[in-house]
């Protein structure tokens, strides 16, 4: 065997004065970092295996554990950083494509943090949401050009199917297979209780979850896993996934190890077989082809369910969105390059796509200019981190947002970026029964409800501060936004003024 150039990324530090050798860390680490040495009566750690998920740190009853960055310095070099060097070592050893999980971690500008919100002072009163009505309900779907009434005042215009959301937040697509059954159950139960929606992702819908159907969006992706008539009719809406922010232009690959009996039945593929989603939909090579799929899905669901089309934020997003609207979609989901994933080629994750803030602004602008903004709802996705991001997204033109990374963080995710190993210590991105158990849906669905309710309170407070009493009045209201620390071109694309203007 030749020399191994890899070094640990993290160091496990154990305070021996506090360690009581209870072996909770040994039992809980799915990566086998900790081991008990009976002869010495001590617990040891193998730093090499540590992914820094904090499971042991949080379960250690005496707080004896700390994880630190492994301090091994290369000669300082702004160009050849330790990450750049270590990635080459890894590829020179394996000959493989580098894989990463979760969203783009590179220090690209985060435009949410470069926009500031307005508030009322003197000339228009602010509103206290605790004392006055404050509407955060939104309707997603195609809106008619005009409303017509008969002589008795009864509406005669036929309204296309709409999704009613109590709060303009939905749980974004994460497939059963990529995340565990318990994670899915938590999302489904939380969505039902909150009056919002969760998305099945591309892995089909387990029969046991059909009961949450009226709060479910079923996805149809290039692999068409688990797609059948019952599935399409089980949800409240259908989403065609063209692309994903974390890996635009790239398909998916669920390793066979994660395809257990239940996942195999749900996806309608043999147990243990790799689930490979092709990069494109092989029946969609044009907007016209997309229209055919949209209408096939509408046909099978009797035109009763809105059809969403999800694309990754890429360079021509505005033109593509216009095409999607004209193809008959009821909503467009735009997923920015910071959106998460279970696994993506590192180079794609870190270098392909554009920020959702810019794509959202240009899409909203383009659809308005073309006079077709009413034909589709816009859903922004790709690293919405808090309620302020949501308010800014809506002011930029979104109807609602999708969250997934934030939702899994609420479920216990510690952003260790090791989803693809299938050994998620928090029971989220794994199918190993012993690990899945760690995510107790009875506890976790309440945490999701807490998070969304807290954000809703904050949205109401911010709206009230602006003197607005309904989220609909904020949509596309870019005068509520001001840029800071960005250049003229960025202001132009975002369609906002600079702070102080």
């Amino acid at each position: 065997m030749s020399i191994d150039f890899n070094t640990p990324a993290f160091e496990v530090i154990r305070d021996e004065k506090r360690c009581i050798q209870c072996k909770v860390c040994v039992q809980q680490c799915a990566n086998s970092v900790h081991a008990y040495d009976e002869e010495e009566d001590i617990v040891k750690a193998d730093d090499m295996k540590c992914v820094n998920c904090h499971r042991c740190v949080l379960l250690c009853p005496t707080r004896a554990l700390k994880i630190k960055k492994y301090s091994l310095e290369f000669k300082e070099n702004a160009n050849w950083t330790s990450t750049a060097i270590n990635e080459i070592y890894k590829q020179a050893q394996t000959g493989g494509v580098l894989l990463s999980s979760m969203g783009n971690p590179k220090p690209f500008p985060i435009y949410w943090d470069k926009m500031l919100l307005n508030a009322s002072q003197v000339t228009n009163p602010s509103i206290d949401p605790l004392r006055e009505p404050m509407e955060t309900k939104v309707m997603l779907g195609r809106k008619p050009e005009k409303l017509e009434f008969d002589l008795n005042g009864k509406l005669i215009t036929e309204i296309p199917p709409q999704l009613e959301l109590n709060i303009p937040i939905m749980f974004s697509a994460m497939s059963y297979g990529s995340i565990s059954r318990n994670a899915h159950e938590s999302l489904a139960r939380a969505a039902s209780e909150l009056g919002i929606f969760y998305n099945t992702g591309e892995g089909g819908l387990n029969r046991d979850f059909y009961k949450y159907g009226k709060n479910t969006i079923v996805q149809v992706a290039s692999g068409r896993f688990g797609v059948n008539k019952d599935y399409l009719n089980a949800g409240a809406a259908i989403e065609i996934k063209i692309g994903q922010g974390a890996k635009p232009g790239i398909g998916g690959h669920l390793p066979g190890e994660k395809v257990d009996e239940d996942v195999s039945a749900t996806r309608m593929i043999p147990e243990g077989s790799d689930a490979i989603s092709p990069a494109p939909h092989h029946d969609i090579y044009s907007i016209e082809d997309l229209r055919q799929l949209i209408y096939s899905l509408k046909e099978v669901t009797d035109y009763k369910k809105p059809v969403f089309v999800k694309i990754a934020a890429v360079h021509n997003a505005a033109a593509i969105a216009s095409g999607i609207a004209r193809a008959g979609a009821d909503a467009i989901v735009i997923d920015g390059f910071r959106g998460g994933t279970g696994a993506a080629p590192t180079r794609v994750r870190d270098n392909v796509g554009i920020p959702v803030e810019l794509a959202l602004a240009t899409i909203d602008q383009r659809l308005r200019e073309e006079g077709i903004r009413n034909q589709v709802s816009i859903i922004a996705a790709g690293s919405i981190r808090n309620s302020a991001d949501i308010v800014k997204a809506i002011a930029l033109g979104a109807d609602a947002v999708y969250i997934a990374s934030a939702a899994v963080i609420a479920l216990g995710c510690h952003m260790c970026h090791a989803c693809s190993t299938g050994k998620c210590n928090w029971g989220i991105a794994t199918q190993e029964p012993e690990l899945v158990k760690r995510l107790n849906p009875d506890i976790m669905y309440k945490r999701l409800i807490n998070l969304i309710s807290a954000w809703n309170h904050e949205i109401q407070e911010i709206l009230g501060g602006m003197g607005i009493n309904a989220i609909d009045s904020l949509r596309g209201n870019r005068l509520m936004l001001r840029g800071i620390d960005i250049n003229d071109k960025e202001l132009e694309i975002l369609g906002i003024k600079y702070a102080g203007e």
Partner: protein
Amino acid sequence: MKKVYAFESRCLGCGLCEVYCRTAHSKSKDIVKAHKKENITSSIVIEEILQPKAKTYFALQCRHCASPKCVRACIAGAMYKDENGIVRNDKEKCVGCLSCILVCPYGAVKKNKDGKAVSKCDLCINYGSQLCVKNCPNEALKLLTEEEAEDLV
């Protein structure tokens, strides 16, 4: 009366209940001291069963039976059912004959490490709250009445 019920479907086998049981029954009531300086036997024990696809764990602790066999078998009058229905062991009286261990249908009575007496769940009556229930990270242990437990199963 309320007892500690263990739910196998939620038990992770982490062993934190054992750690906190020992702490609750220590003199110092300090986790580190209880483990480093005192020699305490946990009254709750995690058992591991190998299933075809995965390991299953369950926590084993006293059921505080309606007519406890251990009380009847005790030769020293140390094991008794108190006015609240809690089966307790008077360590002063216990002679360590281990008859209770032999008759317990659940295997919930444990031999103390010092060999002088036996150890069993007393529902932390002297501690005030059930530390195992409070510190279970997955709500696998619950303090419930018999009726509440039946509803959950």
